[in-house]
Protein backbone atom coordinates (compact mmCIF):
# COMPACT_ATOMS: atom_id res chain seq x y z
CA UNK A 1 0.00 0.00 0.00
CA UNK A 2 1.02 3.52 -0.68
CA UNK A 3 2.26 5.42 2.34
CA UNK A 4 -0.02 8.36 1.73
CA UNK A 5 -3.53 6.99 1.41
CA UNK A 6 -5.33 8.97 -1.27
CA UNK A 7 -8.36 10.96 -0.24
CA UNK A 8 -11.61 9.13 -0.63
CA UNK A 9 -13.58 9.19 -3.89
CA UNK A 10 -16.77 9.26 -1.87
CA UNK A 11 -19.17 10.85 -1.40
CA UNK A 12 -20.24 11.02 -5.04
CA UNK A 13 -22.52 13.92 -5.87
CA UNK A 14 -24.90 14.10 -8.81
CA UNK A 15 -26.35 17.50 -9.44
CA UNK A 16 -29.36 17.73 -11.76
CA UNK A 17 -27.88 15.16 -14.11
CA UNK A 18 -29.61 14.52 -17.42
CA UNK A 19 -28.77 12.15 -20.25
CA UNK A 20 -30.62 12.75 -23.48
CA UNK A 21 -30.53 10.84 -26.75
CA UNK A 22 -32.45 12.64 -29.47
CA UNK A 23 -35.58 13.77 -27.71
CA UNK A 24 -35.62 10.93 -25.20
CA UNK A 25 -34.63 11.98 -21.70
CA UNK A 26 -33.19 8.70 -20.45
CA UNK A 27 -32.00 10.32 -17.24
CA UNK A 28 -34.14 13.31 -16.44
CA UNK A 29 -32.67 15.51 -13.76
CA UNK A 30 -31.28 13.30 -11.01
CA UNK A 31 -29.62 14.80 -7.95
CA UNK A 32 -28.29 12.55 -5.25
CA UNK A 33 -25.33 11.79 -3.05
CA UNK A 34 -23.75 8.37 -2.60
CA UNK A 35 -21.85 7.95 0.66
CA UNK A 36 -19.27 5.41 1.70
CA UNK A 37 -20.70 2.47 3.60
CA UNK A 38 -24.19 1.26 2.79
CA UNK A 39 -24.82 -1.04 -0.15
CA UNK A 40 -26.88 0.96 -2.61
CA UNK A 41 -29.23 -1.02 -4.83
CA UNK A 42 -30.93 0.62 -7.80
CA UNK A 43 -34.26 -0.87 -8.86
CA UNK A 44 -36.99 0.15 -11.25
CA UNK A 45 -38.91 -1.01 -14.31
CA UNK A 46 -37.31 -1.67 -17.69
CA UNK A 47 -36.21 1.51 -19.38
CA UNK A 48 -36.13 3.50 -16.15
CA UNK A 49 -32.50 4.40 -16.83
CA UNK A 50 -30.82 2.22 -14.19
CA UNK A 51 -27.93 1.00 -16.31
CA UNK A 52 -27.40 4.42 -17.84
CA UNK A 53 -27.23 5.99 -14.38
CA UNK A 54 -24.58 3.44 -13.39
CA UNK A 55 -22.52 4.18 -16.51
CA UNK A 56 -22.79 7.91 -15.91
CA UNK A 57 -21.49 7.48 -12.36
CA UNK A 58 -18.66 5.23 -13.54
CA UNK A 59 -17.68 7.67 -16.29
CA UNK A 60 -18.49 5.45 -19.26
CA UNK A 61 -21.08 7.99 -20.39
CA UNK A 62 -21.01 11.74 -20.15
CA UNK A 63 -24.10 13.53 -18.91
CA UNK A 64 -25.87 15.80 -21.38
CA UNK A 65 -26.25 18.32 -18.59
CA UNK A 66 -25.68 18.51 -14.87
CA UNK A 67 -22.64 17.63 -12.82
CA UNK A 68 -21.20 14.37 -11.51
CA UNK A 69 -18.47 14.97 -8.96
CA UNK A 70 -16.36 12.64 -6.88
CA UNK A 71 -14.99 14.14 -3.69
CA UNK A 72 -11.41 13.38 -4.66
CA UNK A 73 -11.61 12.45 -8.34
CA UNK A 74 -9.21 10.12 -10.14
CA UNK A 75 -6.70 12.11 -12.15
CA UNK A 76 -6.43 11.13 -15.81
CA UNK A 77 -3.72 8.50 -16.23
CA UNK A 78 -3.89 7.46 -12.59
CA UNK A 79 -5.00 3.95 -11.72
CA UNK A 80 -8.74 3.74 -11.29
CA UNK A 81 -10.16 3.45 -7.80
CA UNK A 82 -13.55 2.25 -8.96
CA UNK A 83 -14.52 -0.83 -10.92
CA UNK A 84 -17.54 -2.17 -12.72
CA UNK A 85 -18.95 -5.64 -13.31
CA UNK A 86 -21.32 -5.99 -16.24
CA UNK A 87 -24.30 -8.19 -16.89
CA UNK A 88 -22.29 -10.24 -19.36
CA UNK A 89 -18.74 -10.70 -18.14
CA UNK A 90 -16.23 -9.47 -20.71
CA UNK A 91 -13.17 -11.69 -20.50
CA UNK A 92 -10.14 -11.86 -22.73
CA UNK A 93 -9.01 -15.00 -24.56
CA UNK A 94 -6.38 -15.80 -21.99
CA UNK A 95 -6.23 -17.83 -18.84
CA UNK A 96 -8.33 -16.82 -15.85
CA UNK A 97 -5.32 -15.53 -13.95
CA UNK A 98 -3.99 -13.65 -16.99
CA UNK A 99 -7.27 -11.74 -17.15
CA UNK A 100 -6.56 -10.46 -13.66
CA UNK A 101 -2.86 -9.74 -14.11
CA UNK A 102 -3.79 -7.78 -17.25
CA UNK A 103 -6.05 -5.52 -15.19
CA UNK A 104 -3.35 -5.21 -12.52
CA UNK A 105 -0.83 -4.18 -15.17
CA UNK A 106 -3.15 -1.39 -16.34
CA UNK A 107 -3.52 -0.32 -12.71
CA UNK A 108 0.24 0.02 -12.49
CA UNK A 109 0.85 -2.83 -10.06
CA UNK A 110 4.54 -3.82 -10.30
CA UNK A 111 5.20 -6.97 -12.31
CA UNK A 112 6.43 -9.05 -9.39
CA UNK A 113 3.27 -8.57 -7.34
CA UNK A 114 0.65 -9.28 -9.96
CA UNK A 115 0.53 -13.06 -9.84
CA UNK A 116 0.28 -13.32 -6.07
CA UNK A 117 -2.41 -10.65 -5.97
CA UNK A 118 -4.34 -12.34 -8.76
CA UNK A 119 -4.13 -15.72 -7.04
CA UNK A 120 -5.34 -14.17 -3.82
CA UNK A 121 -8.36 -12.71 -5.63
CA UNK A 122 -9.09 -16.04 -7.32
CA UNK A 123 -8.92 -17.77 -3.95
CA UNK A 124 -11.39 -15.30 -2.48
CA UNK A 125 -13.99 -16.14 -5.13
CA UNK A 126 -13.22 -19.87 -5.07
CA UNK A 127 -11.63 -20.11 -8.52
CA UNK A 128 -8.07 -20.98 -7.55
CA UNK A 129 -8.26 -24.40 -9.18
CA UNK A 130 -9.12 -22.92 -12.61
CA UNK A 131 -6.44 -20.20 -12.52
CA UNK A 132 -4.72 -21.72 -15.55
CA UNK A 133 -7.87 -22.46 -17.55
CA UNK A 134 -8.83 -20.28 -20.50
CA UNK A 135 -11.31 -17.74 -19.13
CA UNK A 136 -13.85 -18.02 -21.90
CA UNK A 137 -14.52 -21.71 -21.48
CA UNK A 138 -15.47 -21.38 -17.80
CA UNK A 139 -19.15 -21.71 -16.92
CA UNK A 140 -21.31 -18.58 -16.86
CA UNK A 141 -21.22 -18.40 -13.09
CA UNK A 142 -17.47 -18.93 -12.98
CA UNK A 143 -16.94 -16.25 -15.60
CA UNK A 144 -18.91 -13.76 -13.55
CA UNK A 145 -16.99 -14.72 -10.41
CA UNK A 146 -13.79 -14.20 -12.37
CA UNK A 147 -15.02 -10.74 -13.38
CA UNK A 148 -15.62 -10.05 -9.69
CA UNK A 149 -12.18 -11.38 -8.77
CA UNK A 150 -10.66 -9.08 -11.37
CA UNK A 151 -12.47 -6.16 -9.80
CA UNK A 152 -11.57 -7.27 -6.28
CA UNK A 153 -7.86 -7.61 -7.13
CA UNK A 154 -7.88 -3.91 -7.93
CA UNK A 155 -9.11 -3.15 -4.41
CA UNK A 156 -11.56 -0.54 -5.65
CA UNK A 157 -13.15 1.94 -3.34
CA UNK A 158 -16.42 1.68 -5.25
CA UNK A 159 -17.78 -1.28 -7.22
CA UNK A 160 -20.60 -0.77 -9.70
CA UNK A 161 -22.58 -3.85 -10.71
CA UNK A 162 -25.06 -3.92 -13.58
CA UNK A 163 -27.43 -6.88 -13.10
CA UNK A 164 -24.52 -9.23 -12.40
CA UNK A 165 -26.71 -12.31 -11.97
CA UNK A 166 -29.31 -11.70 -14.70
CA UNK A 167 -27.99 -14.52 -16.90
CA UNK A 168 -27.27 -17.01 -14.12
CA UNK A 169 -29.15 -19.85 -12.49
CA UNK A 170 -30.08 -19.43 -8.79
CA UNK A 171 -27.11 -21.44 -7.52
CA UNK A 172 -24.58 -19.42 -9.46
CA UNK A 173 -26.39 -16.21 -8.54
CA UNK A 174 -26.11 -17.15 -4.88
CA UNK A 175 -22.33 -17.56 -5.25
CA UNK A 176 -22.12 -14.11 -6.83
CA UNK A 177 -24.14 -12.58 -4.00
CA UNK A 178 -21.75 -14.12 -1.48
CA UNK A 179 -18.77 -12.55 -3.24
CA UNK A 180 -20.46 -9.15 -3.40
CA UNK A 181 -21.23 -9.32 0.32
CA UNK A 182 -17.63 -10.28 1.06
CA UNK A 183 -16.29 -7.39 -1.01
CA UNK A 184 -18.53 -5.06 0.90
CA UNK A 185 -17.27 -6.49 4.18
CA UNK A 186 -13.79 -5.83 2.83
CA UNK A 187 -14.59 -2.12 2.66
CA UNK A 188 -15.80 -1.63 -0.91
CA UNK A 189 -18.80 0.59 -1.54
CA UNK A 190 -21.37 -1.41 -3.54
CA UNK A 191 -23.66 0.25 -6.08
CA UNK A 192 -25.75 -2.37 -7.85
CA UNK A 193 -28.53 -2.41 -10.40
CA UNK A 194 -30.76 -5.43 -10.17
CA UNK A 195 -34.00 -6.64 -11.58
CA UNK A 196 -34.36 -9.25 -8.90
CA UNK A 197 -36.22 -7.83 -5.90
CA UNK A 198 -35.29 -10.80 -3.72
CA UNK A 199 -31.67 -9.96 -4.41
CA UNK A 200 -32.31 -6.29 -3.72
CA UNK A 201 -33.69 -7.29 -0.30
CA UNK A 202 -30.80 -9.59 0.48
CA UNK A 203 -28.02 -7.25 -0.62
CA UNK A 204 -29.43 -3.76 -0.32
CA UNK A 205 -28.97 -1.44 2.63
CA UNK A 206 -30.63 1.37 0.77
CA UNK A 207 -32.78 1.38 -2.34
CA UNK A 208 -32.85 3.92 -5.13
CA UNK A 209 -36.07 3.53 -7.09
CA UNK A 210 -35.86 4.91 -10.62
CA UNK A 211 -38.88 5.61 -12.75
CA UNK A 212 -38.83 7.17 -16.21
CA UNK A 213 -35.37 8.60 -15.71
CA UNK A 214 -36.13 10.19 -12.36
CA UNK A 215 -35.23 9.22 -8.84
CA UNK A 216 -38.75 8.51 -7.62
CA UNK A 217 -37.81 7.25 -4.18
CA UNK A 218 -34.83 6.64 -1.98
CA UNK A 219 -35.24 4.71 1.24
CA UNK A 220 -33.60 2.20 3.56
CA UNK A 221 -34.24 -1.25 2.10
CA UNK A 222 -36.50 -2.61 4.85
CA UNK A 223 -38.72 0.45 4.76
CA UNK A 224 -38.84 0.54 0.96
CA UNK A 225 -40.12 -3.02 0.72
CA UNK A 226 -42.49 -2.69 3.69
CA UNK A 227 -43.94 0.67 2.91
CA UNK A 228 -42.93 2.50 -0.26
CA UNK A 229 -43.83 6.15 -0.19
CA UNK A 230 -44.19 6.93 -3.88
CA UNK A 231 -47.13 5.56 -5.83
CA UNK A 232 -44.88 4.42 -8.67
CA UNK A 233 -42.76 2.37 -6.30
CA UNK A 234 -45.85 0.86 -4.66
CA UNK A 235 -47.22 -0.12 -8.07
CA UNK A 236 -43.86 -1.50 -9.13
CA UNK A 237 -43.56 -3.64 -6.02
CA UNK A 238 -47.11 -4.87 -6.40
CA UNK A 239 -46.48 -5.84 -10.00
CA UNK A 240 -43.17 -7.52 -9.31
CA UNK A 241 -44.04 -9.34 -6.12
CA UNK A 242 -47.24 -11.23 -6.69
CA UNK A 243 -48.37 -12.38 -3.24
Amino acid at each position, binding site marked *: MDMRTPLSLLPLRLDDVAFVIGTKRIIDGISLQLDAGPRTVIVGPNGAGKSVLLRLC*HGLLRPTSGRIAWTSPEAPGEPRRQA*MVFQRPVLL*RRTAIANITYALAIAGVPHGWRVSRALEALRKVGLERVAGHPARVLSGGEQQRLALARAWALAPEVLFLDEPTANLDPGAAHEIEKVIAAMHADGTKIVMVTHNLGQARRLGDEILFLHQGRLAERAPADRFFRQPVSRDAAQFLEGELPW
Partner: protein
Amino acid sequence: MSSLSQAAVEAIRLVAGADPKLSEIVLLSLRVSLTAVAIASVIGLPIGAAVAVSRFPGRRTVIVILNALMGLPPVVLGLLVYLLLSRAGPLGSAGLLFTPTAMVIAQAILIVPIVAALSRQVVEDAWQEYREQLRSLGETPLGAAAALLWDLRFSLITIVLAGFGRAAAEVGAVMIVGGNINGVTRVMTTAIALETSKGDLPLALGLGMILLAIVLALNAAAYMVKESAQRRFG
Protein backbone atom coordinates in the same frame (compact mmCIF):
# COMPACT_ATOMS: atom_id res chain seq x y z
CA MET B 1 -5.54 -32.78 -75.45
CA SER B 2 -2.63 -35.19 -75.66
CA SER B 3 -0.11 -32.36 -75.38
CA LEU B 4 -1.93 -31.19 -72.23
CA SER B 5 -1.85 -34.64 -70.60
CA GLN B 6 1.78 -35.03 -71.67
CA ALA B 7 2.54 -31.72 -70.05
CA ALA B 8 0.74 -32.78 -66.89
CA VAL B 9 2.71 -36.04 -66.65
CA GLU B 10 5.94 -34.16 -67.21
CA ALA B 11 4.91 -31.58 -64.60
CA ILE B 12 4.28 -34.29 -62.01
CA ARG B 13 7.69 -35.81 -62.81
CA LEU B 14 9.37 -32.42 -62.24
CA VAL B 15 7.57 -31.86 -58.95
CA ALA B 16 8.14 -35.40 -57.68
CA GLY B 17 11.79 -35.32 -58.70
CA ALA B 18 12.33 -32.02 -56.92
CA ASP B 19 13.86 -30.57 -60.06
CA PRO B 20 16.62 -28.15 -58.89
CA LYS B 21 15.54 -25.35 -61.22
CA LEU B 22 11.99 -25.70 -60.01
CA SER B 23 12.93 -25.83 -56.30
CA GLU B 24 15.05 -22.70 -56.67
CA ILE B 25 12.08 -20.78 -58.05
CA VAL B 26 9.72 -22.13 -55.40
CA LEU B 27 12.10 -21.28 -52.55
CA LEU B 28 12.66 -17.74 -53.80
CA SER B 29 8.91 -17.25 -54.12
CA LEU B 30 8.38 -18.39 -50.56
CA ARG B 31 11.24 -16.27 -49.26
CA VAL B 32 9.98 -13.11 -50.98
CA SER B 33 6.28 -13.51 -50.15
CA LEU B 34 6.78 -14.68 -46.56
CA THR B 35 9.13 -11.78 -45.83
CA ALA B 36 6.67 -9.39 -47.44
CA VAL B 37 3.75 -10.71 -45.42
CA ALA B 38 5.78 -10.56 -42.20
CA ILE B 39 6.68 -6.92 -42.82
CA ALA B 40 3.13 -6.07 -43.89
CA SER B 41 1.70 -7.67 -40.74
CA VAL B 42 4.05 -5.79 -38.44
CA ILE B 43 2.90 -2.57 -40.09
CA GLY B 44 -0.70 -3.38 -41.05
CA LEU B 45 -2.03 -5.06 -37.90
CA PRO B 46 -1.21 -2.16 -35.54
CA ILE B 47 -2.60 0.33 -38.07
CA GLY B 48 -5.83 -1.63 -38.36
CA ALA B 49 -6.22 -2.00 -34.61
CA ALA B 50 -5.37 1.64 -33.90
CA VAL B 51 -7.91 2.88 -36.44
CA ALA B 52 -10.49 0.48 -34.99
CA VAL B 53 -10.28 1.75 -31.41
CA SER B 54 -9.63 5.45 -31.91
CA ARG B 55 -11.80 8.33 -33.00
CA PHE B 56 -10.17 11.18 -34.86
CA PRO B 57 -11.10 13.66 -37.57
CA GLY B 58 -10.76 12.11 -41.00
CA ARG B 59 -11.16 8.58 -39.67
CA ARG B 60 -13.79 7.67 -42.25
CA THR B 61 -11.55 8.92 -45.03
CA VAL B 62 -8.71 6.74 -43.74
CA ILE B 63 -11.01 3.70 -43.70
CA VAL B 64 -12.26 4.37 -47.23
CA ILE B 65 -8.70 4.78 -48.48
CA LEU B 66 -7.54 1.59 -46.77
CA ASN B 67 -10.45 -0.32 -48.26
CA ALA B 68 -9.83 1.14 -51.70
CA LEU B 69 -6.13 0.30 -51.57
CA MET B 70 -7.02 -3.36 -51.11
CA GLY B 71 -7.85 -3.36 -54.79
CA LEU B 72 -4.64 -1.65 -55.87
CA PRO B 73 -3.59 -3.18 -59.22
CA PRO B 74 -0.19 -4.86 -58.74
CA VAL B 75 1.17 -3.57 -62.05
CA VAL B 76 0.42 0.02 -61.06
CA LEU B 77 2.09 -0.48 -57.72
CA GLY B 78 4.99 -2.19 -59.47
CA LEU B 79 5.38 0.81 -61.72
CA LEU B 80 5.40 3.21 -58.73
CA VAL B 81 8.01 1.15 -56.88
CA TYR B 82 9.99 0.89 -60.11
CA LEU B 83 10.04 4.69 -60.42
CA LEU B 84 11.13 5.00 -56.78
CA LEU B 85 13.93 2.46 -57.10
CA SER B 86 15.14 3.15 -60.64
CA ARG B 87 18.54 4.80 -61.07
CA ALA B 88 16.96 8.22 -61.56
CA GLY B 89 14.43 7.74 -58.77
CA PRO B 90 14.64 9.08 -55.23
CA LEU B 91 15.85 5.72 -53.86
CA GLY B 92 17.88 4.82 -56.91
CA SER B 93 21.23 5.10 -55.17
CA ALA B 94 20.40 2.05 -53.05
CA GLY B 95 20.66 -0.09 -56.18
CA LEU B 96 17.70 -2.25 -55.22
CA LEU B 97 15.93 -2.50 -58.57
CA PHE B 98 15.84 -6.04 -59.98
CA THR B 99 16.71 -7.62 -56.64
CA PRO B 100 14.57 -9.82 -54.38
CA THR B 101 14.55 -6.92 -51.90
CA ALA B 102 12.71 -4.77 -54.42
CA MET B 103 10.16 -7.55 -54.82
CA VAL B 104 9.71 -7.77 -51.06
CA ILE B 105 9.15 -4.02 -50.87
CA ALA B 106 6.56 -4.07 -53.66
CA GLN B 107 4.64 -7.02 -52.21
CA ALA B 108 4.73 -5.61 -48.69
CA ILE B 109 3.25 -2.32 -49.89
CA LEU B 110 0.65 -4.28 -51.84
CA ILE B 111 -0.60 -6.20 -48.80
CA VAL B 112 -0.32 -3.64 -45.99
CA PRO B 113 -3.75 -2.22 -46.95
CA ILE B 114 -5.26 -5.71 -47.02
CA VAL B 115 -3.96 -6.59 -43.58
CA ALA B 116 -4.84 -3.15 -42.16
CA ALA B 117 -8.34 -2.93 -43.63
CA LEU B 118 -9.38 -6.47 -42.74
CA SER B 119 -7.92 -6.32 -39.22
CA ARG B 120 -9.60 -2.96 -38.69
CA GLN B 121 -12.92 -4.62 -39.36
CA VAL B 122 -12.29 -7.59 -37.08
CA VAL B 123 -10.88 -5.50 -34.23
CA GLU B 124 -13.69 -2.98 -34.47
CA ASP B 125 -16.32 -5.69 -34.14
CA ALA B 126 -14.60 -7.00 -31.02
CA TRP B 127 -14.15 -3.48 -29.69
CA GLN B 128 -17.93 -3.10 -29.53
CA GLU B 129 -17.98 -5.97 -27.08
CA TYR B 130 -14.90 -5.01 -25.04
CA ARG B 131 -15.01 -1.24 -25.05
CA GLU B 132 -16.87 -0.60 -21.82
CA GLN B 133 -14.92 -3.19 -19.86
CA LEU B 134 -11.52 -2.00 -21.06
CA ARG B 135 -12.39 1.64 -20.48
CA SER B 136 -13.68 0.70 -17.04
CA LEU B 137 -10.27 -0.80 -16.29
CA GLY B 138 -8.64 2.45 -17.36
CA GLU B 139 -7.02 1.03 -20.51
CA THR B 140 -5.66 3.54 -23.03
CA PRO B 141 -6.73 3.31 -26.70
CA LEU B 142 -3.32 2.03 -27.75
CA GLY B 143 -3.24 -0.46 -24.91
CA ALA B 144 -6.67 -1.64 -25.96
CA ALA B 145 -5.49 -2.02 -29.56
CA ALA B 146 -2.62 -4.23 -28.42
CA ALA B 147 -4.83 -6.29 -26.09
CA LEU B 148 -7.38 -6.82 -28.86
CA LEU B 149 -4.76 -7.88 -31.39
CA TRP B 150 -3.61 -10.55 -28.95
CA ASP B 151 -7.16 -11.54 -28.10
CA LEU B 152 -8.07 -11.96 -31.77
CA ARG B 153 -4.80 -13.65 -32.73
CA PHE B 154 -6.51 -16.71 -34.18
CA SER B 155 -8.87 -14.70 -36.37
CA LEU B 156 -6.01 -12.54 -37.56
CA ILE B 157 -4.15 -15.59 -38.89
CA THR B 158 -6.77 -15.80 -41.63
CA ILE B 159 -6.15 -12.16 -42.54
CA VAL B 160 -2.39 -12.61 -42.66
CA LEU B 161 -2.95 -15.61 -44.91
CA ALA B 162 -5.16 -13.61 -47.23
CA GLY B 163 -2.23 -11.21 -47.49
CA PHE B 164 0.16 -14.06 -48.23
CA GLY B 165 -2.18 -15.43 -50.87
CA ARG B 166 -2.31 -12.08 -52.60
CA ALA B 167 1.47 -11.67 -52.45
CA ALA B 168 2.29 -15.16 -53.69
CA ALA B 169 -0.25 -14.99 -56.50
CA GLU B 170 0.48 -11.58 -57.95
CA VAL B 171 2.69 -11.33 -61.01
CA GLY B 172 2.57 -7.70 -62.14
CA ALA B 173 4.56 -6.05 -59.37
CA VAL B 174 7.33 -8.62 -59.07
CA MET B 175 7.67 -8.78 -62.83
CA ILE B 176 8.28 -5.03 -63.07
CA VAL B 177 10.53 -4.47 -60.07
CA GLY B 178 12.22 -7.89 -60.12
CA GLY B 179 12.66 -8.23 -63.85
CA ASN B 180 12.18 -12.03 -63.86
CA ILE B 181 15.93 -12.63 -64.04
CA ASN B 182 16.74 -16.31 -64.22
CA GLY B 183 18.26 -17.53 -60.93
CA VAL B 184 17.99 -14.10 -59.30
CA THR B 185 14.46 -12.76 -59.30
CA ARG B 186 12.44 -15.44 -61.03
CA VAL B 187 9.53 -16.51 -58.86
CA MET B 188 6.66 -18.91 -59.50
CA THR B 189 4.22 -16.47 -61.04
CA THR B 190 6.71 -14.78 -63.34
CA ALA B 191 8.13 -18.15 -64.34
CA ILE B 192 4.67 -19.46 -65.17
CA ALA B 193 3.98 -16.43 -67.33
CA LEU B 194 7.31 -16.75 -69.11
CA GLU B 195 7.29 -20.53 -69.62
CA THR B 196 3.74 -20.43 -70.90
CA SER B 197 4.61 -17.82 -73.49
CA LYS B 198 7.70 -19.86 -74.45
CA GLY B 199 5.54 -22.95 -74.78
CA ASP B 200 7.25 -24.90 -71.97
CA LEU B 201 3.99 -26.08 -70.49
CA PRO B 202 5.31 -28.81 -68.15
CA LEU B 203 7.37 -26.39 -66.07
CA ALA B 204 4.54 -23.82 -66.03
CA LEU B 205 2.03 -26.43 -65.04
CA GLY B 206 4.31 -27.91 -62.38
CA LEU B 207 4.83 -24.50 -60.83
CA GLY B 208 1.10 -23.84 -60.96
CA MET B 209 0.44 -27.08 -59.11
CA ILE B 210 2.94 -26.20 -56.42
CA LEU B 211 1.55 -22.70 -56.04
CA LEU B 212 -1.95 -24.07 -55.58
CA ALA B 213 -0.74 -26.73 -53.17
CA ILE B 214 1.09 -24.18 -51.00
CA VAL B 215 -1.89 -21.86 -50.77
CA LEU B 216 -4.18 -24.79 -50.04
CA ALA B 217 -1.90 -26.27 -47.38
CA LEU B 218 -1.45 -22.94 -45.61
CA ASN B 219 -5.16 -22.29 -45.51
CA ALA B 220 -5.89 -25.77 -44.23
CA ALA B 221 -3.29 -25.33 -41.50
CA ALA B 222 -4.68 -21.95 -40.52
CA TYR B 223 -8.19 -23.33 -40.42
CA MET B 224 -7.14 -26.14 -38.12
CA VAL B 225 -5.21 -23.79 -35.82
CA LYS B 226 -8.23 -21.54 -35.58
CA GLU B 227 -10.64 -24.39 -34.92
CA SER B 228 -8.59 -25.97 -32.18
CA ALA B 229 -7.85 -22.57 -30.62
CA GLN B 230 -11.53 -21.71 -30.56
CA ARG B 231 -12.27 -24.94 -28.78
CA ARG B 232 -9.52 -24.29 -26.25
CA PHE B 233 -9.91 -20.57 -25.62
CA GLY B 234 -13.56 -19.97 -26.45
